[in-house]
């Protein structure tokens, strides 16, 4: 079945929300105070994007659901994020490799969506692409420094790139969104541009581009890894314990 615009918007909103939560888990654990603030800032940018996307999802769905409904009251199987963003933080290198792959895709995605035939998404894209461009500077900057740093940082960076690589294909679009593309609601495929850009970053970092073609997919259709449920449990616990609470 072809995905509708609501599914597309939820995929993007879930991507932003889940990654936002993963980055928030770094707060007070980052290697330096500066990096703590940097990761928190990126997390908050992603949260802001998720909120806009969920609010719009509520409009598209037309059942009176607000942003909180989509964030707090859906279970793992209803989430449509790519598997990459739910992967555990690991060491700093894993977080940075995950972020580079994500940020490069997000930059190209939002760039392509500034021309969307959907004015709400196009307006959101105009803002999100600036935020995301900075996120990529941050993550790519770190990957280059880790790859080009000490033997230990290089070893960990390569291990992180290898570990995250099998989760990248889902970042480059879903196989059921052809109709949305034909209608001009979503842009051209970002895959080839992403491949070239990521190869470039890896080259700059002195890291090997993984040759494995095996890819894990399923997140965009609600089939998640074992890591999403504990994340949601933590993220949704308060809202579910005190429904409708405000502060």
């Amino acid at each position, binding site marked *: 079945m072809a995905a509708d615009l609501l599914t597309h918007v939820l995929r993007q909103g879930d991507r932003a929300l889940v990654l936002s939560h993963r980055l928030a888990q770094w707060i007070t654990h980052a290697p*330096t105070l500066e*990096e703590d603030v*940097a990761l928190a800032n990126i997390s908050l940018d992603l949260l802001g994007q998720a909120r806009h996307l969920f609010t719009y999802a509520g409009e598209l769905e037309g059942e009176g659901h607000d942003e909180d409904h989509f964030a707090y009251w859906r279970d793992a199987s209803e989430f449509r994020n790519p598997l990459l963003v739910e992967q555990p933080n690991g060491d700093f290198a894993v977080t940075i490799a995950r972020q580079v792959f994500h940020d490069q895709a997000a930059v190209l995605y939002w760039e392509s969506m500034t021309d969307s035939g959907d004015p709400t998404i196009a307006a959101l894209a105009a803002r999100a692409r600036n935020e995301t461009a900075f996120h990529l500077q*941050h993550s790519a*900057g770190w990957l280059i*420094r880790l790859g080009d740093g000490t033997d230990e940082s290089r070893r960990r960076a390569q291990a992180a790139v290898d570990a995250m690589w099998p989760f990248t294909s889902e970042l480059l679009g879903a196989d059921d969104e052809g109709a949305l593309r034909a209608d001009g609601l979503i842009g051209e495929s970002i895959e080839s541009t992403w491949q070239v850009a990521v190869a470039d970053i890896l080259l700059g970092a002195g890291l090997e581009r993984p040759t494995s073609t095996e890819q894990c997919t399923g997140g965009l259709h609600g089939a998640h890894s074992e890591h999403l449920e504990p994340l949601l449990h933590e993220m949704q616990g308060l809202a579910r314990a005190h429904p409708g609470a405000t502060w």
Partner: protein
Amino acid sequence: MSTVFPQWEVFVRARRGLDHQHAGSVHAPDGETALRAARDLFTRRQEGVSLWVVPSTEIVASDPADVDALFGPAADKAYRFPTNYDLPPEVDHM
């Protein structure tokens, strides 16, 4: 990461036409990273349109012990202040 990164002094220009002002410092392994950290720490609320970072070790500072020798003598040199001079009445509202 037990290594302590070098310190950088951060200067922010709030608006075009103003000077860069010292805002604080960050730790970072290199200038580019320091700039990004400074962006996050000192321009979150639209405080700036331009940033400089300078290695703190490159700043040559005056010695607090020299305060009297450096700055004291300025106190009794009234001729350095414009108010020390009587202006002819012809120079109105200067």
